[in-house]
């Protein structure tokens, strides 16, 4: 060793401490020891281990090296290495920035995947679901909705309902196949539920409460056309895909436990809660086919309006205050919906007030009438 030792060196082979003479020529650190070959570190591969501030020894390593280490005492040499080398001085800051960048990138990728899985894929894949999957899912949903409710199938009542259905379908270009059944569905406290469901596979379920609340065949026709819109636009099938997508996202982060999310009734009902956009689409579909079938869409409007007033006593007052107030009422109702899973029509049909406003009555009304007074009475008595 020609120069005086000015550093401590660990060669990464043993725990032995070597005295070393270190020189720095702006490109390389040359580490010289007695009786050993010089070790040369390229300065742009040198990283800070610790120190480098006044009063501290400077500890250095070569990038990716899990062994050899060099310790320089505080002084001119240490200062010239740290002072002149940006990448050594800012090593920690750079690591932080790189890490935050990768982390943000990960969030962006996951957000994109989540959006695709939950917002784009469902409607796109809805038509591709095999019938067997749709049926299995519909069976489960049906169970959760109907439970042990009594089926309402008085023959004269069902015939009246079918008559309305035939009339509506006559207005559709390419009507989907569907079935329609009425059940006496009760809420907790045996209050009658007022709701209509479009389950996957075209299975439509009306509650007896809904038939009871309806004041005309036009109203029943309106609700039916709306639900037919969901069926035709494959909203229930899209919901299945969405549920499985959500479930998969949850399971990734909970090791397969997220599947539970849809195994309970609350999860199942969340499936049937369509977005406002979907509701509006179903409304537009309903109004179109009702018009074509010469049925007044006003029935849909009057029915929803009456229900909304019942559900939100304040809505009546607000409705007289004009459109803006009406919007507030619907916002409130949709927030309340999230808290109570299955209370009424609005729990599964959000955005009601603004939708009601959009429906225009048909000139000339329903022509000819949907049902005779006898048929209408039979329909009202379908649960007998």
């Amino acid at each position: 060793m020609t120069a005086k030792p000015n550093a401590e060196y660990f060669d990464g082979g043993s725990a032995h401490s070597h005295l070393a003479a270190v020189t720095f020529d702006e490109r390389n650190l040359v580490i010289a020891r007695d009786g050993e070959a010089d070790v040369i570190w390229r300065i742009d591969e040198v990283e800070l281990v610790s120190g480098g501030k006044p009063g501290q020894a400077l500890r250095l390593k070569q990038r990716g090296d899990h062994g050899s280490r060099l310790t320089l005492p505080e002084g001119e040499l240490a200062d010239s290495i740290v002072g002149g080398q940006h990448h050594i001085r800012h090593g920690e800051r750079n690591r932080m920035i790189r890490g935050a960048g990768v982390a943000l990138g990960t969030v962006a990728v996951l957000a994109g995947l989540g959006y695709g899985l939950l917002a784009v894929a469902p409607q796109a894949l809805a038509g591709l679901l095999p019938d067997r999957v749709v049926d299995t899912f519909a069976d489960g949903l049906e169970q959760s909705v109907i439970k042990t409710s009594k089926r309402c199938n008085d023959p004269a009542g069902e015939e009246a309902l079918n008559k309305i259905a035939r009339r509506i379908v006559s207005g559709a270009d390419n009507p989907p196949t569907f079935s329609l059944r009425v059940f006496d569905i009760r809420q907790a406290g045996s209050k009658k539920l007022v709701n209509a469901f479009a389950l996957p596979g075209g299975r439509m379920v009306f509650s007896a409460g809904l038939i009871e609340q309806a004041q005309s065949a036009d109203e029943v026709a309106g609700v039916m056309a709306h639900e037919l819109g969901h069926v035709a636009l494959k909203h229930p099938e899209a919901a299945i895909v969405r549920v499985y997508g959500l479930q998969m996202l949850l399971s990734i982060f909970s090791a397969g436990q997220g599947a539970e999310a849809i195994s309970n009734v609350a999860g199942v009902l969340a499936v049937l809660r369509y977005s406002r956009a979907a509701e509006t689409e179903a409304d537009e579909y309903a109004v179109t086919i009702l018009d074509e079938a010469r049925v007044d869409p006003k029935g849909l409007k009057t029915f929803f309006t009456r229900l909304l007033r019942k559900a939100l006593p304040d809505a009546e007052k607000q409705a007289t205050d004009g459109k803006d107030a009406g919007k507030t009422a619907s916002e409130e109702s949709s927030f309340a919906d999230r808290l109570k899973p299955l209370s009424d029509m609005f729990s599964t049909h959000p955005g009601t007030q603004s939708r009601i406003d959009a429906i225009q009555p048909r000139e000339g009304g329903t022509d000819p009438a949907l049902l005779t007074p006898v048929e209408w009475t039979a329909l009202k008595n379908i649960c007998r």
Partner: protein
Amino acid sequence: MNDIPQPATAAGPSPSATAGTSGPVAAGGGEAVRVEYVTRPGLAGIAVTNFLLNLVTLWFYRFWAKTRVRRHIWSSVHINGEPLEYTGTGKELFFGFLVIMGVIFLPLALIATVLAIQTGPEHPAMTLFQIAVSIGLLTLYGFAIYRARRYRLSRTLWRGIRGALTGSALAYSGKYFASLLLSPMTAGWLRPAMNLLLAEQMYNDMRFGNQPLTFRGRAGPLYAQYAICWFLMAGVIVAIAVGGVALATSDMFTQYADLFGALFKGTGTSSEAQGLLLFVAVLGLAALFLMYQIFSSIIWALYTAREMNLFTQYTTFPGLRFDFSATAWSLVALWLGNLALIIFTLGIAQPFVEQRVIRYFCDRLSVDGLVDLSAVKQSQAQLDERGEGLIDALDLDAF
């Protein structure tokens, strides 16, 4: 302490204590070893920036955050004046996470989804699958702990020499699973023996460079202390049960029972008085739970201190013997301090919790004897390319 499930505490001191098993080379003989924690400024800044970056990145920054904290804490542990160095990177932890997600969690999610599609919701097959997955994950706990320890040791450097863990993670995993099953089945009476079994493998598998730690000892001396704690614990549980029965037969309870009954039936008329009653009930239960936690922590600290001290005494390194001076009160103080730090800073001070734990080990570890460092050569154990994905995914360990 409470970050790690019980049997893991048996695995004893942190990696820093492991590397503390040797000292500088002295010509013609050995050198004494002294371990000290040198508190340095800078951790508060790290804690705050980590927290903010975690917040912005929905905690995906945590891999780099952990790494930065470890670099700080490791380099504060000085053995004979030379600091430890943590050589792990955030990238390695991130890849560890990605691999575990891809190898275990994504396939599980796919299987769960396909199964749900095939059987429909609310099918018994789903429940069976979930139970199987839960048990399967339990068998991975020991594996996760062992592999995480192996990664950390391999990324701990002192005087240019790495630590290592050279045994079978699978064997450890089996023992860990057995202890999870057997300890509760024997009302806890097998716990000291199982902890010893786990510590035995963990310590005997540890290396500093090419030099092994050795762990020799029996579980017998643990049992006197364990029995005391077990019966104290039983006393606390009986006291709670008696209190519960007394409460259940009191007037106040019938009042509450009516209230809750009404609430569940949905027929309750909510009044302010009832709201207050409910609030008091919830507050009371929370206070009771907290009291139970504190009592049980104090009681088990008596045992944990004994176990830590004994296990440290059972451990040797060529030329060195170790001693540890844990006490129940200092452990409780450590634990309560950590709890307060986490609660009052909303978790921002987590790095200080880690610092306190490592400092506790450094302060209370003493090393006897002389070590010949010329005999310590570099570890030939293969370096993991990534680390800790499993322990992160299973959320077993906050470090």
